[in-house]
């Protein structure tokens, strides 16, 4: 499974995940305090400059991940033009773009294991309400592993179906796939218990 972390190394990769996430929260919160398009555009430019500092390839990658947002931007602008409130539309679009571009910068320069470490640290106080950080880290790892396991199961059951029938496998493989997935989860839990469990 592909992660969204950029393979292109930038100076931002070396900054620890915690400060980056904190900075992101400040920037996203800051955009809510600004209601004028000019400072918001300046902020967007500043975040874009940070992307450019990562090199041309990195900046191109940053632009590519923003592409799905463009139709939304167009629709929002059209809607506000129709409402005769272009400035309000511009403020809203700029706020969204600043927060999203800054969030992408953090996502693209932080490895998954660093993120898991932050989650583990932030979740530590939840120990008092019965959620153990080790259990959380294990659940994250298990879930990430289950995604390809489940896809493989569906593919296997589809192959078995095609070996028996000339018709296409459709909804009929849903139940066998669901049962196989449940049995996989049961086996994992037995394996965990056999290895001493979460005690």
């Amino acid at each position, binding site marked *: 499974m592909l*992660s969204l972390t950029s393979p292109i190394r930038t100076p931002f990769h070396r900054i620890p995940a915690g400060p980056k*996430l904190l900075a992101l929260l400040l920037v996203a919160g800051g955009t809510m305090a600004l209601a004028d398009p000019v400072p918001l555009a300046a902020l967007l430019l500043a975040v874009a400059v940070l992307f450019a500092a990562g090199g041309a390839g990195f900046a191109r990658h940053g632009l590519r991940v923003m592409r799905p947002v463009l139709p939304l931007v167009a629709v929002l602008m059209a809607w506000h033009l129709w409402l005769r409130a272009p400035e309000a539309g511009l403020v809203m679009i700029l706020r969204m773009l600043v927060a999203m571009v800054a969030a992408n910068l953090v*996502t693209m320069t932080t490895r998954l294991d660093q993120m898991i470490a932050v989650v583990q640290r932030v979740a530590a106080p939840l120990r008092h309400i019965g959620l153990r950080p080790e259990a959380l880290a294990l659940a994250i790892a298990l*879930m*990430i592993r289950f*995604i390809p396991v489940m896809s493989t199961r569906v593919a296997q059951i589809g192959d078995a179906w095609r070996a028996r029938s000339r018709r296409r496998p459709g909804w009929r493989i849903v139940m066998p796939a669901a049962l196989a997935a*449940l049995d996989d989860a049961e086996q994992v839990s037995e394996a*965990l218990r056999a290895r001493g*469990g*979460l005690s």
Partner: protein
Amino acid sequence: MERNLSMIALFAALIAVLTLVPQIHLPFGVPITAQGLGIMLCGTVLGAKRGALAVLLYLAVAAMGLPILSGGRGGLAPFFGPSAGFLIGFPVAAFVIGWIVERWRAGIGTVAFVASVFGAIPVLYAFGITGLVLFATKETSFATATAAMAVFLPGDILKAVLAAAITRSLARARPQAILSRA
């Protein structure tokens, strides 16, 4: 404990797999996926608390940068976008669905259907619409946002039917796996 943990991880992965199933995009940027089916199954099979935890796990892993949200999105950006209200509503919807299935001890198929409709339509839409309205400027009213949600209705009812059928079959084949009724 180990069993709860692996079931929660499994259902979190199930939401991810169902979300990546081919999907249709609506013009205002909120895509239709089988994701809702995954959320419903979390509630009907795992129950309130575990179901909500599975959805939270899915969101946490998506936020950490795996492209498992609708449209292959991931990372932190979607949590600042117009569909953030739905993302926040997902665990609440799963909790409500699970809560109903745990409390109302009629036939599991019927209960799962009613609970899924209730959790995925009024409860989840309330969060989604609030998100859209807060995100948009004052010019977008609750009425327009609510009207825009109508396009989701047929799909969500179909998903509730599927969730009920799958839950009922699972209850027959693996009764011990229906943690909401354990």
